[in-house]
Every structure is written in C-alpha cells, then in structure tokens.
C-alpha cells in the first residue's frame, strides 16, 4: 500500500481528495460556523482535518515522481509524517487566525472621523491614532513650534545621507559636524530661548521625537566614554584597569529602570543644595553611562580581535600609547565592531520607553496618557499596536542594516 510511482495518479487523486476534504472542513468551521464532521465524537471531529490531511499528504508523498510541483511540495512541506503534521498545523493556524486579524486591522477598521463615536465597525478604531497623531509624535510641544523639531530631524537625515553621497574628502567634516555642531544646534533649536525663539521647557517634549532625542544624545555621548572604558579595561595599569572593570560591571549588573530611579530620586541628593538639574538632562546622563558600559564591552571585543602584531608593529615604529591607539588600533578595532555598535544602538532605542518611570512621556507614555482620556477609553489595543508597529519598523530596518553591514564587512576580510 506504500505510495509509489507506478500508481502515481491513483495515489495523487486519493491524497488530494483527502486533503481537500480536510481543508473544506476547516474552511466551513472557520468561516461558516458549520462543522461537517460533527457526527463524530467531539475529539475526532476536532482533529478530523488534521487526520484527513495527514493521510492525504501520506498518499502524495512519492519520491522522484517526475512532477516538479509535487516534488517541491514533498521536499519542503512533506518530507516525513511528522513534517506533514507540522505543515498542516501551521496552515490551519494561518487559515483560522490571519483572516480575522486582517479584518480587525483593515477591512472592519474605521479610518475616518474625529471622535470615538465615528468608530462603528467591529475592527480597530484608527481614528484614535489619527486624532492623537500629533501628540504621539511631538508630545505636548506646541503645534506652532513643531517645525523646529522637524527641521532638526531633516538636518540630521540630510547630513547622514550626504555621508553616503559625498566623496570621501568631505566625509570627515560631516561626521565632525554631526558629532560636535549638530547637537548644539538641535538642542538650542528645540529648546529655544535664543534668537527670539520661544522657550519650551523639556517637560513639554514628548512622543516619538523624544525617543529620537534621547537615543541620539545618549549614543553620541556614550561612544567616547565607552571607548575610553574599553581602553582602561585593557590597560596594564592595575588602578585604571580595576576601576574600569568596576565601573563597567556595576552598570551592566543593574537594570536600566533602577538607574533611572537613581537619576530621579537619588542623584539630586548628591548635588549641592539649591542646584537643580533638568529632568531630561539627568535621564540622558543616566542612559549614557548605562549604555557606555555596554559600548565598552563591544569595543573591547574589537580590541581583543586584533592580532598582537598590530600592537608590536606600531610600537616598533616608536609610537606612544595614544598615537598607537588612535592611529593604528582603534580605526581597525572599531571597524570590526560596527555591527555590535549598531546592536547597542538598537538596544538603546528599545530601552527608551522606560523613561516613563521618571515621568517623561515618549511614544508609549503618550499612548498611556491618551488611552486614559475619558473621551477615548478602551483604545489601548489600537494605541499599543500602533506604537509596536512604529518601533518595529525602526528596529527591524536597523537590525537588517546591521546584518547587511556584518555580511559586507565579513567578506572584505
């Protein structure tokens, strides 16, 4: 009875028939609420599509049948009994849940309108996201002044983009601009207070733009600190080595949330009486120190990966410690760990929502605020799905980019 090539058509017909009965069963069950195998005991009726389908797949499992489609199916979905059952389970899960998810997401969803009452369908109420969109992006930043944030980001994007387009000669000026001049411009532009711009206190900053502000500043500052910590950890001077190790392990051993707590409630106690440091600034310092410890470990990986010959060669040219590191070692080591740096940045972006513990409202925090608005109760799902989508797009593209980089760099060596 084992299927073979001689009775190919009998077996294929039999298999496809059984398979179709199984699929029809699951379709009727899902979309028409009608169980065609209801006359069986409940457990058999429940498993009937699976049983029928796996028998069907058993009959069409014919090696080297000569039919390309059949062979491809057998190879990829149906190479053994257990594989067949797994494939069927995945297909049935897709049939059962994907349509209802799509319905909720798009087909039954409401996009138009201005109030909650405009949401009449069964699906998602995207009106909520549309009405609150400005708040989700800019927090409590005044509407009339939002061009300042937009302008800063466009400036950032343009200068990053120009790194890829301009010839190598200008690249380093752009990077210097990004590292030293851009932060000052952006900070002054967004907070205002000079050139006749209205002063906007950091409490009003929020939404997705705050996520970018916090992660961009933390990245810029944590990078040099991380490099020095990594050098310190590999130093042969015991006092420097052990204080670097202590610093790194201290931050790596505690969760970010406690570090933020520290910056919020404990740090003011350590400042001279009467001085006040802005909440956002404290948060950025805390995240910077925290991420610097992780960055240090990434950079240390690069330093360790360099062969000893590089150090020896640099020393034999008569270079001192700093010249050797800045001219020979670090350029190579940092190139090795670009993917690691990208991953650290990714982790940093994913960690920024935590700043809600000190009362700063970025995207997730703004959604928390919006969903408790009495006019918009019961919109938590829409809000969090929207935020998840936004973060997913950012993080996924970044991780893909770092993977590409990893591939590119690994082939060059």
């Amino acid at each position: 009875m084992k299927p073979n090539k001689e009775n190919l058509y009998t077996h294929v017909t039999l298999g496809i028939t059984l398979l179709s009965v199984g699929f029809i069963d699951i379709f009727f069950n899902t979309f028409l609420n009608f169980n065609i195998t209801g006359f069986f005991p409940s457990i058999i009726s429940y498993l009937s599509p699976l049983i029928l389908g796996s028998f069907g797949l058993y009959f069409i499992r014919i090696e080297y049948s000569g039919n390309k489609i059949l062979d491809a199916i057998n190879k990829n979905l149906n190479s053994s009994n257990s594989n067949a059952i797994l494939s069927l389970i995945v297909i049935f899960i897709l049939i059962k849940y994907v349509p209802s998810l799509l319905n909720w997401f798009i087909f039954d969803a409401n996009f138009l309108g201005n109030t909650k009452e405009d949401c009449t369908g069964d699906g998602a109420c995207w009106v909520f996201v549309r009405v609150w969109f400005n708040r989700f992006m800019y927090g409590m930043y005044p509407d009339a002044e939002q061009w300042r944030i937009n302008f800063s980001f466009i400036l950032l994007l343009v200068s990053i983009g120009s790194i890829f387009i301009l010839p190598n000669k200008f690249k380093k000026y752009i990077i210097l601009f990004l590292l030293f001049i851009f932060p000052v411009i952006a900070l002054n532009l967004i907070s205002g207070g000079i050139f006749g711009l209205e002063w906007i206190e950091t409490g009003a900053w929020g939404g997705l733009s705050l996520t970018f502000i916090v992660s961009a500043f933390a990245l810029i500052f944590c990078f040099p600190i991380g490099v020095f910590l990594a050098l310190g950890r590999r130093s042969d001077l015991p006092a420097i080595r052990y204080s670097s190790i202590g610093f790194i392990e201290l931050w790596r051993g505690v969760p970010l949330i406690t570090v933020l707590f520290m910056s919020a409630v404990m740090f003011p106690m350590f400042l001279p009486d009467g001085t006040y440091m802005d909440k956002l600034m404290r948060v950025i310092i805390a995240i910077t120190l925290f991420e610097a410890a992780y960055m240090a470990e990434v950079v240390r990986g690069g330093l360790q990966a360099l062969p000893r010959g590089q150090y020896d060669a640099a020393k034999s040219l008569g270079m001192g410690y700093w010249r050797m590191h800045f001219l020979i070692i670090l350029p190579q080591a940092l190139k090795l760990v670009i993917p690691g740096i990208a991953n650290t940045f990714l982790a940093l972006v994913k960690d920024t929502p935590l700043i809600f513990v000190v009362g700063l409202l970025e995207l997730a925090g703004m959604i928390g605020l919006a969903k408790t608005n009495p006019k918009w109760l019961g919109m938590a799902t829409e809000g969090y799905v929207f935020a998840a989508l936004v973060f997913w797009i950012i993080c996924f593209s970044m991780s893909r980019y770092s993977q590409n980089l990893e591939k590119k760099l690994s082939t060059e060596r």
Partner: protein
Amino acid sequence: MNFKTFSIDLKNKKRLIPQVLTLLSIFLAISYFTFNAQVNMDNRGIAFGFGFLSQEASFDIGFSLIDYDGSHSYARAFLVGLLNTLLVSIIGIFFATLIGVTVGIGRLSSNYLVSKFSEVYVEVFRNIPLLLQLFFWYFAALRALPLPEEAMNFNDISYLTVKGWYVPKFIWTNFSLFICSVIAAIIAIIFVSKHAKKQREEFGKHIPSFYIGLVLLFSLPALSFFIGGVALEFEIPVLEQMSATIFNFRGGVSIIPELMALAMALSMYTATFIAENVRAGILGIGKGQKEAAASIGLNKTQILKLVVLPQALRIIIPPTTNQYLNLTKNSSLAAAIAYPDIVLVFAGTALMQTGRAIEIVSITMGTYLLISLSISSFMNWYNQSVAIKEK
C-alpha cells in the same frame, strides 16, 4: 644616579602618575558627592542608616509568596518583593527556554512553513520594545478576558478571567517527606549515572541509566505516598456570588494578571534571543562531525546525544545564561504594570513612605548586582570546566 636606574625611575613614574591621578579623581568625585549628600540630609533632618528596615512598613502588597501584611517590617516587604522578582524570573526563564529551543530548532527545519513561521516569530518579537509588549499583554490582551461569571472554563478545574487565572490549590500532608523522597531520588540518579559511566569506560558495559533514573524519579516519590503517609488534595476554585452583580471565585490559587502579562512578555521576548543562540549553536557544529559520527556507526539519536549536543551546548549555554540574566533584570519592568516586584515594592512604595532615597536605591541596585555577579561568576566557573581541554 646612573642612567639605568634613572630610566627605570622614569618608567615607574610614567606608570604611577596616571594611576594616582585616576584614583585621586575618583576619590575627589566620591567625597564631593558624599559631602553634598551629607549637607542635603542634614538640611532635611534625616540621618543615613539602615535602621528603618526594622520599622513597621504599614502598606499592603497585593501578591505575596510569604506571610505579609502592613504590620510587618520594611525588611520583610523587601523580601516579598525579592521573592516576587525571583518567581517571575524563574517562570519566565522556564517558558523562554521552552519557546526559544522550539523556535530555534524550528528555524533550522527542512519544512519551509515551519522555518518561515519561526523566523517571523523571531523578527516580530525581537524588534518590539519589551515595555510595549508588556503593555499590550496587560492593557489590551488580558483585559479582553471575560468576567468571573462568564469565565473560560477548563474542565471545571481551572478558570481564566479578567481578574486572574484560578487554578487548584495543592494541599499537602507530610510535604517535607515528599521533598526528601525527591531529593533522595535525585541523589540516587546521580550515583547510578556515575556508576554507569564508570562501567562503560572501564568495562565497555552498557547500563540503561536513563531508564533506571526515570523509574527512580517516579517510584521513590510514589513510595512516599503509599508508605510514608504523604497525601495530596486539590482545592478547586468555586464561583460565588458576592452581591447581586458581583461574582468572584473562592478557593484555589489566583494567578494575578500582572504576573501572567509579565511572564508572557518576558518569555516571548527573551525566547527570540534564545532561539537565535540555539540556531547559532547547532549551525556551529560542522557537517564533518555528524558525518564522522555516522561513519563510525552511531545511529541518529546517538549522533545527536553524543556528538552534536555536547558541542552545541558549549556554544549555546554562555550567551543563553546572559539572556537569563537579562530576563531577570528586565523583570524590573514590573513596576510599569504594578506587579509587586522589588522595584515597585521597595524602590517605589517604601521609598515614597520613608524618603530614604540613597539607602533604598543602593539596596535595590546592590541586590540586582549581587544576583548578576553570582550568576556570571558561576557561569565563568562552568565555562572553564566544560571548555575543550587541549592536550
């Protein structure tokens, strides 16, 4: 002074000066901050000290593994928080490993659908911030569960409602004897496997230690039931009408939604990283290893058990423990959904009541640091003991 001693002197100075400067600046920074803290605390009339730990806490905690109410001390509240943190971490680690290993193996499956499905899972859950996932489960998914009177019913034993998951409570008699029997079984299994290994290596004799172990693991505790008078009863939750419209379950154990949401978010998020570790570990074993094992006549299970797994585990375990550590640290997100873990109970409520920011934040951070350092030093020891010893 001749030239040689002078040059050594110079070299020593070159080594000494940066070290002294570093230590001096660290010392200065610490003393500056301590001085400020001293002034600030004097101004507010608080004295530094840990005496407050023995004072009455006078706040309640919603979920506790040990006896606790407002009349207990702050130290006890700290312990409750710590146990809750450990509880959710252990649950999270268990499920993260389960999902992670399944998905990691699934990604390597020859089945196209299964490997795509696993890949989509990893890419989706890895790239969404954990806090958002947590909010999603807590505020969106678990809030959609039915009220107690329409609870989702699992065989009349367990009920899932918006107020939590009610499961039967285990009521043991002579519980300590049962535990003793389990420990005895584990010790016996260790002895059997050691003996089997010795027999195999010295005489080439095969002893089915796995099956003997399985039998031991079940028979000894079973014996304790029949002979030792151990008994187990279940207290099944029952729906009760509190008032005209309010229903609730009585009896059993209630797993609060905060715990469920936190455990779900933590395990699903960490599982993606574990899956990648598992995949990398299995891919890291060269094809030649499997072919060599097959060519000396090992069958498929033996190849997996004796050749692939021992080598793959050596690659998988270090990054996976790192993920376990991350999970434990990430469990501090509990504060966002009011699950009473150490951060919420101690760095939240207790800090609010006592105002002792420095003491409380340092105790909390110190606890996490202690957990991290002890796990990582254990892992260093373990890695050294399993590292390939080249001859």
